[in-house]
């Protein structure tokens, strides 16, 4: 099977990730802050190492990294902690359902007012338009994805964060598609991401990073392995945002993934995956029946969306499957963007290759469509 769905989740994971997870199940089995044994100390060091590595990645102290069940939980916690009744929030047409749906829920529950910045005709986001909206509205929060999970376009997150700061607006960056590919320390006040995409960790884990000066109310209450005599949720981080038994094997697996990535070279992996994306774009783009859906001209992650003049994306998905190529078809949980892309009826076929493919693999994948 050829796997071209890294934007959903990376596959395969480095064997060291599997080893770290297995070692926890076979040899450790305990949580970091639930006991005083030597095992707990070992686990505590492992979890702390992962937390510190993520802190370095985002540019916050390790203590300001809270582990979550995924980017979706991190985004939900952040939006619910930041947005108060009647607040204005600015966002973009590129957002994933994990931002769209909590925002819609908060609009209904708390009267949060939503402004959505449209994608440009070229498939990017206009920083000037963002500045104008920020200055006109002075919203409480600007939440935006770092990269489109449909087209691969990377937004200028540093510029957008700077504009927001100038307007006195907090920023929440959804780095799910960029963490593990690109620097994500871009000056956002809050950063959410998942562990299982380009960071090569296991599913069921994500994190929320919050700038130290920002005081946010906990959104979940429960056991933290600390201050257990108190009825109230501790306010100190990360315990404030980490109620309940953590997913320790996944945290240790992510730690192994981060070490593996540092040793292997993030930039080299990205360059290889982008080369495959370019080869796919060149081969598919030469087919007159294929329309590439706004492939980004500038900064991008290895994602390519296309539609076909004679085949529905769902039909193409079945054709890829029959040829042993795993791709994704449809809307990719990005409901707003398809209006701008002209693909609202049936979505796109999304190819997101990883660096492990060979040039022959890429040609084999393209051959499913080209000349059909």
């Amino acid at each position, binding site marked *: 099977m050829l796997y071209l769905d890294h934007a959903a989740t990376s596959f395969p994971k480095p064997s060291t990730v599997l080893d770290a997870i297995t070692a926890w199940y076979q040899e450790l089995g305990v949580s970091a802050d639930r006991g005083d044994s030597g095992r707990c100390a070992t686990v505590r060091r492992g979890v702390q190492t992962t937390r510190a590595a993520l802190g370095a990645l985002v540019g916050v102290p390790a203590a300001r990294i809270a582990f979550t069940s995924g980017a979706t939980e991190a985004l939900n916690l952040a939006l619910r902690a930041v947005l108060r009744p009647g607040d204005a929030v600015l966002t973009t047409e590129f957002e994933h359902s994990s931002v769209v749906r909590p925002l819609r829920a908060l609009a209904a529950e708390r009267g949060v007012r939503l402004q959505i910045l449209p994608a440009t005709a070229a498939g990017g986001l206009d920083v000037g338009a963002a500045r104008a909206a920020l200055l006109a509205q002075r919203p409480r929060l600007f939440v935006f994805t770092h990269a489109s999970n449909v087209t691969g376009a990377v937004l200028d997150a540093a510029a957008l964060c700077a504009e927001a700061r100038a307007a006195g607006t907090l920023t929440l960056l959804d780095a799910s598609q960029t963490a593990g590919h690109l620097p994500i320390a871009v000056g956002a006040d809050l950063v959410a991401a998942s562990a299982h995409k380009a960071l090569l960790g296991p599913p069921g884990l994500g994190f929320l990073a919050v700038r130290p000066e920002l005081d946010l109310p906990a959104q979940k209450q429960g056991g933290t392995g600390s201050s257990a005599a108190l009825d109230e949720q501790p306010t100190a981080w990360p315990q404030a945002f980490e109620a309940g038994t953590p997913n320790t094997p996944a945290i240790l697996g992510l730690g192994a993934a981060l070490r593996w990535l540092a040793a292997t070279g993030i930039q080299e992996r990205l360059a290889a995956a982008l080369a495959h994306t370019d080869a796919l774009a060149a081969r598919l783009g030469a087919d007159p029946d294929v329309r590439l859906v706004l492939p980004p001209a500038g900064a991008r992650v290895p994602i390519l969306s296309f539609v076909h003049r004679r085949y529905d994306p*769902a039909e193409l998905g079945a*054709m890829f499957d029959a040829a042993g190529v795993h791709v994704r078809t*449809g809307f990719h949980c990005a409901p707003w963007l398809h209006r701008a892309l002209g693909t609202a009826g049936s979505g796109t076929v999304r190819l997101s290759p990883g660096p492990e493919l060979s040039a022959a693999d890429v040609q084999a994948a393209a051959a499913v469509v080209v000349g059909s």
Partner: protein
Amino acid sequence: MAELPSLHRYSRQMRFAAFGPQGQQRLRQATALVVGIGALGTHTADGLVRAGIGTLHLVDRDIVEASNLQRQVLFDEADAADGVPKAVAAARHLASINRECRIVAHTADCSAAFLQSLPERPNLVLDGTDNFPTRYLLNDWCAEQRVPWVYAGAVGAEGAAMVVPPGGPCLRCLWPEAPQGAEVGSCETAGILAPAIAAVTAFQLAEALRLLARPDLAPTRGVFTCDVWRGQYGVLPLASGPAADCPACQRRAFPALSAPPPEVATLCGRDAVQIDPPRRTALDLDQWATRLQGAVEQLERTPHLLRFVVDGVRFSVFPGGRALLFGVRDPLRARALYDRWLPHG
């Protein structure tokens, strides 16, 4: 014996000596299951309810359409306009015919899981299906449960029906493998005359009444066949008894009960359903294209697939039997359309 007032409605039936008041009492205590509430199922359900069955379970996954009204009794134009589920519409009309009967409507796929979840074991199962996989399932489940069932089918002007007693011979004894869909006609491609339905369901219903009212009598042995256009009716005698190695009625392995169901998924955000049969069939798309010619619209064969439009739904069919159905969201409805237009063996 004093006649209960409500029994008066059955007086003509009870006066038939072989049926009698005792037969009426047995029928009143009986439970039957009708699988498929189309032409066959509405005829037999109507007959059983008028005759005074105690409990009748109806199962069908599809909705009423205008093209059903030519031969499917118990439905009217309002049912078709509203797209009422067939089991529900039939139960409603049956309740107005005889409120003494307990009628239970199931809008469901008649799968092994469905049969196993029935709240009570029926005394009899009547086949009203339009496809062989479901018939083999009924065959195996009835063999396992030792419940008699009555097979029936009709296409064009011809029909066939047969009682399958618990000890066999069963459907698998006669046809070890289901005929492939493209080889047999269907009502969609070969058409159907309503009297062919009436003829086979007359046989089915008479056998049902005898099995339920007079379990001491042996059912008719043989295959009832008819050609109502040529005026030919008869019962072909069976050449032999149960096949010694029959996996259902003799070896009691019941293969259809453990066969995985097809994978059916509504496509995220689309009015479309994907159906992937568990067993890849040697589905020949060219053969299907020939078969469907004239019965469907916009028939198109591409190197990768076969497309056509029918019943307001666009089909894309791939080698092996996977299909996408555009214009439908409900998985049950999609399964019904798939089995109707692409009946697999």
